[in-house]
Every structure is written in C-alpha cells, then in structure tokens.
C-alpha cells in the first residue's frame, strides 16, 4: 500500500521540510485519508496526482490546516504544526477558482496579506510591484480581476500567495479551470517561478501530463492512500502496480498466468519477461502490462521473441501519432492498444483490416499479481 520511497536523487544533501506521519482523515464513516506518511524536502516541487475523490485535496487541506486531520502528525520545518489553525501556519495557497477578491484591484489583491504586517505603504507598493513583475503583470495593477483573463487572474492569485514569502506554496488544481493552451503556458511559468524562488511547492492535480511535466516527485494517490511516490520517469516507467500504470499514461492490461521464472502465458501466447515475474509462483494469475508505445511493429520477424500476428481492427488518427486497436487470434478476446508513429504507418502502410507482425518487447513488460 503506502511506500515511503527515498528520493531518487539521494546523493546530494536534502533537508526534510515537511514530515507527514500517519495522517488519517475521516468524514463521518467515510475514510478520506488512510494512514498517509510522506516526507517532502526543501525546495521540492511535489504533485499529488490521482482521480477525483482520491483524497489529494483533503491531504493538501490538512497540510494547510483548513481541514485538520482526524489523527496523525505534521511537521513543517522541524516544528509540529499538527494542531495549529491555518492562520498560524506558514503557507501560501492558490485555488482552482482563483478566489481573487472581486472588489479590489490587482495591486490591492496582491498586497492583501502585506497590509496586515505593519509594512509601510511605500514598502508594500514596492513589494507588490516586484511581485507583479515576477508574474509578468506589471502594467495591470490598477485593473479589477474581472477585467483579466483566466490565466492572468491565476497569476495574480499566485503573486498574492507569494507576497508574504511563505515557506510552502500550495496549489489546488490551479490550472484546471483554464483553456488547454493557457494551461500549457502557465505550467511552464509556474515551473520557472519555482526554479527561481525555490519555494517548496505542493500541487494537487488530476492531470497526469501536468504532474509529469512539472513535478520533481509525484505522489500517486487512490482511495485515500498513497500508491507510489517517485520521479515522473520512475512513475511512468516503473509503476508499482496496475492502478498507477493505468492512471498515469495508457496501459495495456492483459490477464495471464505465470509459467516460469521469467515467462507468462496470455491466451495461447507465451511471453518472455526480461524483468522477471517478481517472485510470483508458477500458476499465479497475473496482469501483464505494457505501454502502447512500446509495442514494436518495425522489423519484427515472424517467430521472433514475443512476436505474433495481429489484425488492425481500428486505427485512430490523433495528430502526432496513430492509435491502433489490435486483435490477435492467439490472444483470444483480449485487445491490445498500440501507438504507431506517423512514419511507421506510412512506411509500413498500416491500415484498418491489415494483418501485421508485432512484438511485445520483454524488457518493457511488467507483471502484477492479480488482485
């Protein structure tokens, strides 16, 4: 279930900033978070990734003190903050809805938290200008939020959250309300801002692409528990279980049976798995997983390792590549999804109805015990 991974790049000295210990959160009988433990290091960009209702926002709100956990401890910068109200914690927060004060100008919004800190008017003005510059909205200070685009509003919210120089920046689905293009742009902006300021950041998202492109480490969550913690590449390449693989990217999941130390049978096919079968015993029912883009079609010889004949029952054009649905007599009812590059489709004249020779490369096959 929950596994506390040490960070992948463990060589350099990293200081732990946030220590989350055995957090459980219940709403009545419903367990929203179940015994979550996690360490977050100073300056890291962490993404909580998972389907809606997996508890990622609940965890973020527990860290913020907005909805305090039922049990468990949270330490921030060495200080136990488990029971502190939000107002006494040290964080800035950005919401999907922006939550900008509509009746205050952009400058007043950004300076909202500064006014309370006995800063001089001039000092506040300076700080606000600096922050607006940071998010690229220097000339928009006198406008009202409603006069800005969604992306600009979210940048104002970001500036407001950063104004008081918090030790922790919390982003709750900050990009979900934006158009696809603005989202990609702001993704880079936030990432650049993070690199520049180095503030420890936690972002909640259900968008795997966001998590993969932005995070230093991703925390994949499901049903109130952490499924896996790791760098984007680790998560994508080495999902710990079928659930992670299924949620991050697309995964072919075929039912099979272990037949040896490094082989499984799916339908009438026997596959070699270079990575072994994870110590599962022979006869164990397993799920055999493989990413669509790993399926080989170029230069596959008939009779080669893990190769077999398949028919393209459907070929979808997705812009930069094709997604094919393959059927094979030897796999019975099971269908395989494969991604083919434009080149492959052109060079090999792939088309619906065509019969082709494909291979499932053993080194990319992952085996998970059937639950």
């Amino acid at each position: 279930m929950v596994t506390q991974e040490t960070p992948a790049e463990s060589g350099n000295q990293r200081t732990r900033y946030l220590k989350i210990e055995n957090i459980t959160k219940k709403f009545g009988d419903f367990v929203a978070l179940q015994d979550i433990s996690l360490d977050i290091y100073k300056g890291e960009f962490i993404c909580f990734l998972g389907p809606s209702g997996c508890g990622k926002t609940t965890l973020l709100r527990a860290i913020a003190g907005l909805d305090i956990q039922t049990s468990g401890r949270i330490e921030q910068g060495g200080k136990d903050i488990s029971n502190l109200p939000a107002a006494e914690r040290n964080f800035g927060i950005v919401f999907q809805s922006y939550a900008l004060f509509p009746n205050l100008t952009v400058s007043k919004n950004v300076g909202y938290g500064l006014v309370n800190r006995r800063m001089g008017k001039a000092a506040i003005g300076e700080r606000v200008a600096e922050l607006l510059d940071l998010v690229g909205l220097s000339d928009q200070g006198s406008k009202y939020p409603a006069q800005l685009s969604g992306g600009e509003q979210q940048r104002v919210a970001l500036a407001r959250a950063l104004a008081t120089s918090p030790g922790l920046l919390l982003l709750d689905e900050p990009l979900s309300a934006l158009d696809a293009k603005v989202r990609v742009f702001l993704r880079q902006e936030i990432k650049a801002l993070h690199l520049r300021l180095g503030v420890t950041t936690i972002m909640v998202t259900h968008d795997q692409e966001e998590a993969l492109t932005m995070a230093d480490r991703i925390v994949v969550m499901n049903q109130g528990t952490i499924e896996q913690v790791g760098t984007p590449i680790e998560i994508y390449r080495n999902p710990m279980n079928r659930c992670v693989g299924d949620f991050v990217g697309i995964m072919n999941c075929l039912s099979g049976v272990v037949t040896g130390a490094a082989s499984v049978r799916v339908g009438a096919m026997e596959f070699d798995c270079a990575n072994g079968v994870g110590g599962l015993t022979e006869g164990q029912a397993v799920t055999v997983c493989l990413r669509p883009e790993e399926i080989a079609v170029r230069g596959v010889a008939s009779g080669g390792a893990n190769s077999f004949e398949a028919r393209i029952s459907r070929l979808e054009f997705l812009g930069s590549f094709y997604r094919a649905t393959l059927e094979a007599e030897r796999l019975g009812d099971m269908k395989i999804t494969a991604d083919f590059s434009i080149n492959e489709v052109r060079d090999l004249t792939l088309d619906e109805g065509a019969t082709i020779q494909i291979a499932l490369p053993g080194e990319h096959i992952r085996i998970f015990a059937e639950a």
Partner: protein
Amino acid sequence: MTEGVTTLSAAAPLARPILSRDDWIMRWGMLVLGVWLSVAVVLPLYTLLSKGLEDHAGRFVGLANFAEFFATPVLFNSIYNSLTIAIISTVITITLAFVYAYALTRSCMPGKGIFKGIAMVPILAPSLLPAISLVYLFGNQGMIKGVLMGETIYGPIGIVMGEVFWTFPHALIIIITALSMADARLYEAAESLGTSKLRTFFTVTLPGARYGVISACFVVFTLVITDFGVPKVIGGQYNVLATDVYKQVIGQQNFQMGAVVGMVLLVPAVLAFIADRIIQRKQVALISARAVPYHPKPKTRFDMAMMGFCCVVGFMILGIIAVDAFASFIQLWPYNLTLTLYNYDFDLRDGGGWASYRNSIVMASYTAVIGTVIIFSGAYLVEKIRGFTVIRSLVQFMCIIPLAVPGLVLGLAYIFFFNHPDNPLEFVYGTMAILVICTVTHFYTVSHLTATTALKQMDPEFEAVSMSLKVPFYKTFWRVTVPVCVPAILDISIYLFVNAMTTVSAVVFIYSADTTLASVAVLNMDDAGEVASAAAMGMMIVCTSAGVRVLHALLTRGIARASQAWRVC
C-alpha cells in the same frame, strides 16, 4: 526513514485542533446570536405554549383550555371559516398570478416593466387598506354596491377579495421566478417533434413551474390564514382564527384562550411551512446549469390577450389604491364630496395622531438598520463558522422558525414572555425596543435566506485565502464580503423597512400609548369609525413605502454603476 508503513498505526496521535483567534470570535458571535434568537423566538413561543396549558390563575390545567375551545362552536367554527377563506383565496390568487406571470415571462406584450411595478403595489400597503377600499366600493354606502347583487361585502366575499389583492404580489414573485427558469431547449425539442402549443404547455411549461406554483400556494395560504387586517375591517360577523385571537386577547382579556387559538393558528402555518420546505428541497436539481434561457417570440393575438388581462388586473390594483386615496381626500362620503385635507389631521383623532406616523418611521428605520446588521452578520456566521456543528445547526434552525410563526402568535408570545414580572427583560415591554425586536424577528427568515443566498454565491475560498495571509476574518468580511453583498444588504433593509411600516399583526399586541404605530392607527381609527382618516393614514404608509422603494432603486442603480468595473453580471 522507516520502510513501508502498511498497517493503520494505532499510535498515530488524534488531532486536537487549536482554535485560532478567528474561531474564538466566531464562536462567541454564534453564541450571542443563539442567545438573541432564544430570547426573541424560542422562549416567547415556549411561554405561549405553556400559557395555553394554564388557567386564569396560572395553574397547570393540561388540555382543559383546548377542550373548551373545541367545545365552543363559535370558536371551533372559525377553523372551518379560516380554511374556507384560505383555500378560496389561494385558488383565485394563484390563478390570477399565474396568468399574470405567464404574460410577463412568456409573451412579448409591451410595458412589462410597468405591469410588474403595478403588481408590486399591494406590498406597500397594510392589509387593512384594501379592506377599507372595498368598504368604500361595496359597503352599505358603496360606490358600486350593485355589482354584488344584494350580497354583503362584510363577510367571506370581502375577506377573499381583500386577501387576493394583498397576497397577489407574493404569489407573483414566486411564479415569475419559476417561469423564468425555463429551458429553451425543451421548447425547441417539443417544437421539432411537432407538439401542439397546448400539449407543450401541459408537458413542458406546467411541470417546469410546478414547484414554484406549489410553493406560491403555501405562501398565499399561510398569509391568508394568518392575516388579521382584512377580516378585522371587513369580516363583519364572520369569525376567523386570526380575528378570534385578537378578540380573545384585546376584547375579552382572555389570554389563555388567546394562546389556545394562537396555537391552533400555528398548526396550518407550520404544516404549510414544512410541506414547502420538503418541496423546495426537491426542486434543486430541476434546472441544469447548462439550460438555455427561453426568449418568447412575438405573437400578436396572444400578446394582446395577455396585455388585456394584465390591464384588467392592473386596473383593479390601482383602482383599490385610488379609491383609498380618493376617500382620504373627501369630506364625508357619500354626503359631502368636497375635497379636503381634514382627514389627514390625525391629531384630532384616536389612534395616536401624527406621532404614530413618526413612531412608525423611527421603528421601521431601526428595524431596517439593526435588523440588517444582525441578520446579515448572523447569516455570515452560520455560513462561515468552522466546526461548532451542534450550536450552528441549532442557530440555523432558530433562524428558520420565524417563517412558520404567524405575526399574531409572535406578538401574543411577546406579551406573555416580556410582560412577565419575573422576566429581567421586562423593562423593554412597552418601549420602542420591543417593537423593533419583534418586527426584526417576524421578518427574520426571509432576510436570512436572502443573505445566505448572496453569501453562497461568493467564492468559499475567500476565508481560506485570508487565513493563509493571516488576515483576520472580520477584515475580509468588512473589505470584501460586505462590499460584494451590498445589493443583497440593500434588499434586506428595504424589505425590513417596508414590512415594518405595513405590519399590524405582531405589533398590535405590544405597542403602548407612547409607541403607537401608523399601521395600528389605521386599525384603531377604522374601529372608531374614522374610516376616512384610516384611509388617509393608509395612504401615508403607501406613499412612504413607495418613496423608500424609489430611493432604493436609485441607490441600487448608483451602486451598480459605481461597481461596474468589478461586478460581473
């Protein structure tokens, strides 16, 4: 670091959240509100209930008073009379209001704004006023007495006519809202399937407005059965529950029986209230966020028919007011028709004179200001407080109770509670303060719901952002919540002001010689036979309410313009 933690660790410490300063302030505020509502709503009602179980000497007699009530045909008959009046009035009002609302929302007739304005006029008047006009029109010396063909206006006919006039705008507002929520796509679908207009009406329009119509029925029913102004003036020998309460208490000083009748009156009001709540809960999911608003297309014949209907109804509404105005300027109907201001010389008459008008203005102003502050802040606390769930639900419930309590019952409860010698709050009895407290309470729920709706439309994360920025909640309340909610706050204050000007039922039991009110003066002058002066005072109330309404409209427009830059409509 530890390795994988896979079991629920029993050792994980339970969280014991420390309350922030904000939390403490909000909780204290909530407690204060709870105590206020207990004093203003719960304890008086409790006193009323226990009073019904006592004899004259204050001894507990169980249900003896109730037994007496049901054994006295004169009293018992009132239940039947009240129900009859309420049902007939409801049917007529809802029918008229539905067609009128249909014309306003589904036709392309000209002058919709004016017609809507005319329909709202009855709200500006106390319910006594239409009754007085009806006496002038159809009474013993009525202008068009012949229309009734020998029937008397003093009785059920008059009561129903008065109630229909007075409740019409209340029904109209609700039904307009229901009809405005139509989804144009359903009509397009019906049309594309070749559905006839009539069938579309019965399969799309009516089901869509169903809950609104039902809700309007309950509102009108409750208003009629609890109203006391109309039957008091024009009811004659026809007894209804509301006038019985008044007669028992003011006429016979039989407080115990008054309490019993009050409780009997409470039953249909509470039942209607509960039924309406249940139905409104069902309505929530009826209209989806993606609905496309329906825009009617011009259809000459239909539009003209609708306009004709609205003209008739509008003429009747304005006619009633005009008759009242006319009567107030006439020396002595029907013998001396000279125009005069004599009837406005209130100081020559019983009922408190001009002082009662001034008192009403003062009382309405206090009610508007104090009421708005309490109700809006209260709604904010109920909406935004974190934790404290039991007290919160309790307070929330107390905010809703007043809607189910008829004004007469509330006023009666106030006598019992505040006039009790053992009550440390007895000193407010007979003062302006008790009138303000009573009126704020009487109209609490609708205002509370208006405030809650406005607050719910705001981003729920404003408070979270404030906390993260270490700004105390009351600063955000003052800098953001209040400015954003100004339209709703104005609506609440105008609602309280106008109702405080026109209400009779609650305050009629608790005014004193120093705090006579204009609306009560109408009642008392009518009682004393000074009908023309009663009409004149009624006109003063209508004009004041109308003036404040106009002021409110100008203010709202000004604010809309000033906040144009940031308010997204």
